[in-house]
């Protein structure tokens, strides 16, 4: 097992219980989607794994390391093995594409090298290579804010990949993209998982996308895992369980899938 969560809970303030006793594990190379209505706790869950948010309780084991018990230095080692991809790409807009990609190497650098932005030749070559793989060879020296949403997200993926990660955490990576760009991003993520063997844990709002790309689906509702299994076994009733009242429009999508 690459990642294991045991009894993980998160409480915001006094009364918001965002996560309750989350238990699941992820195998190396698996493509796992987390689905659920907004406010279910998906983003919180993902961020507890690399401690961008501190869990209140429980245990998280990643690649043999105890995440919640790690000190500052150990956390840095854990974080650089986990790439993160965001809904709003989270690039430094005023810097060039390649500089943004190279930011993924900062976890491997001393503070001085990081402050001065000293990158080795191999790192720069690696950045160019990744940008080529992602179809951005013509935008390498453009400023990040001149790219389209889909291109920005691919820069985000390159930044995560240059970390040489074992796992990618993706928080609704296609929620701000049109269907075309969404498909390109999802295809890239799928091939990263299949060809590079990198584990993918992805928050998705759209069930049909999750069904199409995932090895496994974890359904979350009100901070609890209510489904954990293969996309093929996901029934309409279970989707109803996951989404609660939001279910109406989603059933239509699923009907399409079963028809096709």
């Amino acid at each position, binding site marked *: 097992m690459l990642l294991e969560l045991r009894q993980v809970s998160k409480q915001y303030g006094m009364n918001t219980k965002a996560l309750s006793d989350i238990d699941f594990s992820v195998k190396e190379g698996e493509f796992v989607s987390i689905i659920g209505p907004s406010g279910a706790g998906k983003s919180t869950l993902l961020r507890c794994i*690399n401690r*961008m948010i501190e869990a209140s309780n429980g245990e998280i084991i990643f690649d043999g390391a105890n995440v919640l018990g790690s000190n500052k230095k150990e*956390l*840095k*080692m*854990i*974080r*650089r093995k*986990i*790439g*993160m991809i*965001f809904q*709003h*790409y*989270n*690039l*430094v*807009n*005023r*810097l060039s594409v390649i500089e943004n990609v190279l*930011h*993924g*190497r*900062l*976890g*491997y*650098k*001393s*503070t001085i090298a*990081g*402050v*001065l*932005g000293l990158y080795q030749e191999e790192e720069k070559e690696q950045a160019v290579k990744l940008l080529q793989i992602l179809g951005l060879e013509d935008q390498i020296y453009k400023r990040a804010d001149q790219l389209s949403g889909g291109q920005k997200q691919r820069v*985000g993926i390159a*930044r995560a990949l240059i*970390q040489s990660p074992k796992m990618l*955490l993706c928080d609704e990576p296609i929620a701000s993209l049109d269907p075309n760009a969404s498909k390109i991003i999802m295809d890239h993520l799928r091939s990263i998982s299949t060809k590079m063997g990198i584990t993918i844990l992805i928050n998705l709002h759209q069930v049909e996308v999750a069904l199409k790309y995932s090895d496994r689906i974890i359904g979350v509702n009100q901070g609890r895992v209510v489904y954990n299994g293969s996309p093929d076994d996901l029934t309409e009733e279970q989707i109803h369980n996951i989404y609660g009242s939001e279910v109406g429009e989603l059933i239509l999508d699923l009907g399409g899938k079963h028809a096709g």
Partner: protein
Amino acid sequence: MQGDLFAKKRRDSLVFFALLIAITCVSIVITKYDVEKGFTSIPKAISWAFSNFYPNEKSLEKLPDILLKLKETVLISVAAASVASLFALLFAIFGSETTGINGFMRKITRGIATLFRNIDVSAWAMILLFSFGQSALTGYFALFFGSFGFLTRAFTEAIDEISSSSVEALQATGASYFAIIFQSVIPTCLPQIISWVLFMIETNIRSATLVGILTGTGIGFAFNLYYKNLNYHTASLVVIVVVVAIMIIENLSNYIRRVIL
């Protein structure tokens, strides 16, 4: 409902203006300010300025001397603004919501910045006169402290305003605190930072005239000297030189702003 709202608004503004008039009247009575004389003296002041306060041929001889003083003033203003900006940036980083280390540090740095900001440069000049006497150093430190307070506030707001999203992304890669500051926060805020430093230089040159009168240095000293010697022609030349210098610097910084933004 809606009618009530408008009626309430009308009543509020009525009360506000009534208060304003009351306060004005009370102030006039207390200070024994003669309103009529105040207004009638304006034309007199203007006619005096036109008959005395203009540069003549003789005053132009003093121009090289004035320019020398101007140079001193400009250099002090630039030095004060730029050195202050370094300290201000440090304080802003520690005081910002996005990059501050913890609540305690944030409070401390913001507190210090507020203290410095709320003391005017002329007040700083008076205070520093005691320690440094009438010297260029006094003027420099007065401008430095004033700039520091103002810039800390401006930079803090600039850093607070940038979305913390790229900071989050770099944290997730395992980047260290200072790497994040230099790779994400500063590149993102750089245009605002430069813009504020330019603004500070302009402001400092304006205040330097007043500070110079108090501390006996630079262009302010020159103005004070000629003015007190009743050499109004040369004093007016000083004023013109300052205005021209400020206009040049303003244009220059507007140009730089256009290029970087």
